[in-house]
């Protein structure tokens, strides 16, 4: 609260005020919430209190009660779900009465509130070793069942595609499989294209369980850039001093979009419509404490004038951050990699000649000496550690025509093997 006061007293220039405001909205949601509470006493606290009980104080979810993580899910998506509970297209004994009891504008406020929260995620909470079947469905799909891979729409790593496609990474497995079953049985029907109905209907109970386990093991993304959060702009309820700038800017973009549906980039190119969305502070993900957040705040999105829509590059930067964290670092142990290869369990040497590994010196695939000096993996992928690790785990997923089968390496194993292969000198090739 005192931070807010400082802003309203010291930020006299409009651009500076806007910058500080944007920072606040992203990094300091609870401060914002408190601010709003001040303005309309009795409304927001009560409304959010209704959520906190099950979804946690920051919307981080509670697996004991089967309440999903909602922090950082887009406002559009969250509002749609609340509306769906209210209109019966999504059924739940707990959520229906709550949603029905909330006036539409309060639903929108709640949605906007949780959309901005970067809540902590306990990586140890998810399953350690999710079933392989879950990973296959998530990134490959199933031809026989006519099920496309989840990541076609929900993005690599399940990070979603805000505003309309939710993230599914880091969702509680019990909740997730419950929802897939709801699609399947028809108690959830709020999907205009019926894609989810069709997909879930094709999945068996075991498949549903496996895919839910898989996504529960992945970290959820951080909140999408402020500009993608398309709920009714909460800014209009801010203190008068700060509202005018941000609120009116946002309003100006609304009419065109409202009529034509999702103009996510409409009007970026207007004159003077330059805007910079800088990188979020490093390490901000894990800092959920309010004071830490506000310290980090000055580095968050800054908007100069014109429009709030992001540049594509920025959206990508923001959106893919969790994907990068999902990618394996090359922290493998060459000795363990050699041991895995030498064990013969995965049959690597049946096709490849690998220096340091005895027999059978197969010639089906290329010899692996001097891999680090090669330009490409499998003749077409860039030879980078992360790519090699991903390729080893599932070669046909990256190079569909490759003759190299998926031998069922875990990421750990692939990392160790990659480390060993990169340790081989070019001389080993001969």
């Amino acid at each position, binding site marked *: 609260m005192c931070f807010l006061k400082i802003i309203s007293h010291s930020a006299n220039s409009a651009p500076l005020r806007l910058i500080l405001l944007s920072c606040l909205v992203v990094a300091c949601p609870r401060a914002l919430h408190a601010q709003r509470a001040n303005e309309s006493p009795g409304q927001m606290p009560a409304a959010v209190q209704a959520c906190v009980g099950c979804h946690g104080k920051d919307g981080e979810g509670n697996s004991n009660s089967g309440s999903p993580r909602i922090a950082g899910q887009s406002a559009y998506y969250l509002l749609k779900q609340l509306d769906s509970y209210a209109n019966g297209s999504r059924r739940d004994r707990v959520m229906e009465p709550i949603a029905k009891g909330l006036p539409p504008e309060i639903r929108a406020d709640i949605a906007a509130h949780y959309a901005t929260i970067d809540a902590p995620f306990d990586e140890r909470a998810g399953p350690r070793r999710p079933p392989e079947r879950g990973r296959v469905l998530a990134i490959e*799909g199933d*031809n026989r069942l*006519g099920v496309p891979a989840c990541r*076609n729409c929900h993005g690599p790593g399940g990070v979603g595609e805000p505003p309309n496609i939710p993230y599914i990474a880091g969702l509680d497995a019990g909740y997730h499989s419950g929802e897939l079953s709801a699609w399947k049985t028809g108690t959830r029907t709020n999907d205009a*294209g019926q894609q989810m109905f069709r*997909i879930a209907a*094709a999945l068996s109970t075991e498949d549903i369980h496996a895919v839910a386990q898989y996504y529960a093991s992945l970290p959820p993304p951080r909140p999408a850039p402020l500009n993608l959060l398309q709920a009714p702009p909460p800014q209009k309820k801010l203190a008068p001093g700060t509202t005018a700038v941000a609120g009116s800017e946002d309003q100006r973009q609304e009419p065109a979009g409202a009529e034509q549906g999702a103009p996510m980039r409409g009007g970026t*190119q207007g004159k003077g419509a330059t805007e910079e969305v800088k990188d979020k502070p490093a390490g901000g993900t894990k800092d959920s404490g309010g004071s830490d957040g506000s310290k980090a705040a000055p580095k968050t999105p800054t908007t100069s004038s014109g429009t709030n829509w992001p540049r594509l590059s920025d959206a990508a930067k923001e959106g893919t951050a969790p994907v990068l964290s999902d990618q394996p670092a090359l922290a493998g142990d060459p000795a363990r990699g050699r041991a895995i290869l030498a064990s013969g369990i995965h049959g690597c040497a049946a096709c490849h000649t690998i220096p340091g590994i005895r027999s059978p010196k197969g010639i089906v695939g290329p010899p692996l000496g001097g891999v680090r000096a090669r330009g490409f993996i499998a003749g077409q992928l860039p030879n980078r550690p992360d790519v090699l690790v991903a390729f080893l785990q599932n070669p046909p997923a990256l190079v*569909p025509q490759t003759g190299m089968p998926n031998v069922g390496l875990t990421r750990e194993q692939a990392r160790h093997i990659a480390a060993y292969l990169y340790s081989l000198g070019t001389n080993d090739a001969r």
Partner: protein
Amino acid sequence: MATTRAEVDAILIGVGLVGAILGRELTRAGLRVVGLERGAPRHTVPDFQGPQMHDELRYATRKALMQDNTRETYTFRHTIKDTALPIRRWASFLPGTGLGGSMVHWNGQTFRFQDHDFQQYSHTVARYGKKFIQPDVTIQDWGVTAAELEPHFDRFEYLLGTSGKAGNIKGKKIPGGNIFEDPRSREYPTPPQKEPYGSAIFRKAAEGLGYHAYPQPSCNLSQPYTNPEGLTLNTCTFCGYCERFACEHFAKSTPQTVLLPLLLNDSKFELRTGCQVLHINVDNSGKTATGVTYVDASGKEIELRASLIIVGAYATNNARLLLLSKIGAPYDPETNKGVVGRNYAYQTMSYPQVFYDESININPFMRSGANGTMIADFAGDNFDHGSLGFIGGAYIGEIMTNGRPIGFHPTPPGTPSWGVKWKQAVVRHYNHTSTINVHGSSVATRWNYLDLDPTYKDAWGLPLLRMTFDFPENDIRMSAYCTQKTIEIGKQMGGKLVTGSPRKRPYDITEYQTTHNTGGTIMGADPSTSVVNRYLQSWDVPNVFVIGASNFPQNASYNPTDTVGALAYWSADAIVTKYLKSPGPLMNK
């Protein structure tokens, strides 16, 4: 020396749309069938999955799903006086390869040709007189009627699950559909896709001018659909990656989604991929095909014997295969004799654009390959040509298939083609521009044809197909008229600027226009002017059936796939109910 393999009942040359349909029908009739596919086996999972499938550079720019023209291409020239040169990069049209064929990368635009398209010669003579047809224009009748094909159109559309709105059910015209279409027996299997904003603007403008707007019939489905074969398709997600791409969502009707899973599980069917057919073998009498010779994936030459051969290897390749196999007399334009390669036709496209101010957001990325609103008031002979001096026409529609970042950069005339100003113009106009398709017909002429190139050979040492083509005067006039009509509609669409010019000569093989190559093995009632009879059976070698857009004597205003599918079912029906009972010519010469 070719190795000989065990004889089978029937061979499919090419396993795309035609191969999949014929394979299914022939195995059902009890035949043992081998499908020879020159390309790779590929399936929705894992081959078409995201995010790789949305690699625009790989698939749209570098055309990863197309025929490998380092091994096999066509040569091209404008007139018989020119020397043809090989096409080293696909641009004007994009023949596919691999399991599922070109239908894997199609847009899903699904139209029936109209009856006057099938009777174009006699209809034109009856309505306008013989003199109305310009000299050297060699249009002719197909030998079938729309009424005969209706059950097969119906069956094919229900196989695909096409999303559309009927305009004529059993003779009753239905506003909101294509009221010019011939009677169909029932409604489309699924309702039309959602209408995009730009298309809604077009609808308003077209209806304001008194035209009959209707939704583009689409094979990117509007809702889940289970076809009569028991296969289920998903709803399209409007990702905008249809044409040149394969669908990752099981939402586009392709052989992979509507037939192949059943066919590949059928013990009577065997798929052999990586098999390049060199020629069909014909016995000494010249009247019976004995099988085919192909090179398998390991480079071995194989002779495979069969009593029935189905050629379904894409229009142009069908013609080449007959020429290489010496089935039917090659066409010679100088003497106007011979039939194989005759009446090659194309389509005559133009693309006016409407540039809006920044208050109108078109969102071109939110599309499917067959999603929009169109009119058929100027298609085929749906309007009076009496004073116009040309035959044929165009459908006109706001059917933007995509807004992909590399390919879609609308800029108004006068914009520099590179540099800062160009970039600024792209940013300014990307989301505020509508493109209107003027999808025009193509007449056949004496001088547009296909034959074997005397110079250039493919990777197997066989002559390439030579294409001789330029736009006929008739079609230049047609394009001028229909493009003008489109610009008039564009002006009613509220844009700040409408641009567009009709198609002009010379034909530019380096600019994408359409993959609707037709003719070369045309169907008809007269063996002196057609390669196959009305059942698509070779006049010369009756156990060879040639099926595809190569059967079209000339090309209509509409996209060809629906008509190819109907012809495939029509021919399959004749084979199963007539030919197999008594093998031999189904029609007398």
